[in-house]
């Protein structure tokens, strides 16, 4: 059911001109910005890191706006009630949506790497290429599960996209996708430590430029499983609350 659901939502997203254009253009612009910034800093040896970071930013944007947007779209189409009254746990119905957003977000990662290679001649010399692939897969799944936790909030909020607008940069920043978390204020450390995005980004950066990849992958997977559990409970709770308050269908 998860696989079929994910495939269905990937197909649905691939029919949206908005999703396609944004997925095609925005990651490329972000990658270009990152490449020129890192180049002007005379840090050409870190260009691959910059491309990976920019790609990961794209994956997060896809999950963030995809999770919120998918539910809002169901609201606008009048199908959210149908989904919620399906004889399955809400988590099983919504997880494919958030996994699909993570899956379509991998385009951003691939596109930024291809863009960097073809246009700027960045050599794809990953220190641990196999670990990079595994870390990327884990990262996408982890973000999908994290997206589920967010989605449970989005179900309850009428203006969920506003919350999504607010969360894009903070997660990019605190997770160390492009900016190392060591340059951030100390108080951001505990926040970063509980985010799966931090460990996913760390795993990808370690696979790119060297470091112990597997502990980061393991922690990322562990936190994302916790997100899945909390997301499941949260979704059941907010679904009941939204039914009681009759706010489920309010767009």
């Amino acid at each position, binding site marked *: 059911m998860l696989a079929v659901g994910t495939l269905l939502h990937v197909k649905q997203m691939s029919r949206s*001109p908005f999703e396609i254009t944004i997925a095609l253009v925005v990651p490329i612009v972000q990658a*270009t910005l990152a490449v020129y*910034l890192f180049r002007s*800093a005379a840090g050409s040896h870190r260009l691959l890191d910059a491309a990976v970071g920019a790609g990961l930013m794209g994956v997060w944007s896809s999950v963030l706006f995809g999770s919120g947007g998918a539910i809002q779209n169901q609201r606008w189409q009048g199908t959210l009630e149908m989904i919620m009254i399906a004889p399955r746990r809400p988590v099983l119905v919504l997880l494919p949506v958030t996994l699909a957003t993570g899956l379509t977000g991998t385009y951003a990662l691939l596109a930024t790497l291809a863009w960097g290679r073809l246009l700027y001649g960045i050599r794809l010399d990953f220190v641990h290429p196999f670990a990079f692939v595994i870390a990327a897969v884990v990262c996408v799944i982890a973000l999908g599960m994290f997206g589920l936790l967010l989605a449970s909030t989005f179900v309850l909020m009428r203006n969920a996209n506003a919350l999504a607008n607010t969360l894009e940069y903070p997660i990019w920043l605190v997770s160390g996708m492009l*900016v190392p978390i060591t340059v951030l204020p100390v108080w951001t450390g505990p926040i970063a430590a509980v985010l799966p995005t931090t460990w996913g980004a760390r795993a990808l950066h370690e696979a790119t430029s060297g470091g112990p990849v597997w502990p980061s992958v393991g922690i990322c997977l562990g936190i994302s499983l916790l997100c899945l559990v909390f997301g499941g409970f949260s979704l059941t709770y907010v679904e009941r609350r939204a039914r009681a308050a009759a706010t489920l269908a309010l767009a």
Partner: protein
Amino acid sequence: MKTLRLLTIGGVIAYRALFNWTRPSVFIGTLFVGPLFQLLFFAYLGRQLQVADDRFYIVGNAVLTATLACVFGGTLAVGNERRYGTLGHVLLSPRSRTVVFLGRALPYAGNGILIAVVTLTAGALLLGLRIPPAALPGLLLAMAVGSLSCAFFGLTLGALGLRFRDVWVISNVAVALLLLLTGVNVPAAALPGWMAAAGRWLPITHAAEAARRLAAGDGLTAALPELGREALVGLGYAVLAALLLKIFETESRRTASLETI
């Protein structure tokens, strides 16, 4: 006098109508919190890469944050009329539609100034940037010119909404490109020539440069040439928006595609 009334009061009424559905928390979250984190993201990235100092990123990004309200607002000033089925009523009005729509851009420019001021204040306090008090009026002027220019740019994109269905695509791509091409985050000297040249024809580029000079204590005289260029860019987009609105309105009437969503 009637035109001035239509330009200002009409715009304000249309802007206020937005608050039938939005809430203060949404307004603050989207227009103040998001842009502040954008500023912090690039300021910390700049610190780490040492491409430029804090002033470059804080002041530049504060001016750029106006794009959020101005580009999306300007775009949706036209796009929402179609979405909510009221475009026909607006275009049936016996008054100048050009004035009606240009008036729509003004509250968004005011909103842009507010966001830029709040973001600059919060960014400067959080990151410890000292701005000379004498520079504040000039900075406000730079933000006002930049926001107005950006609002007309948004309206130009909104005019495309009379021709194309999905204005969200246009506005989202435009905002992403402004981030790259305006030289706010990557110094223009570090960009390829064609990108820097394209940036000079976009809003915010010159306003951000003027604001940086003012924040550095160079005085209004040093910033005036850049402010003049920004005003010219804004004027250019206002004229272009008026032309496109006129052309696309005529075309939409001819092909009966006004309400096509």
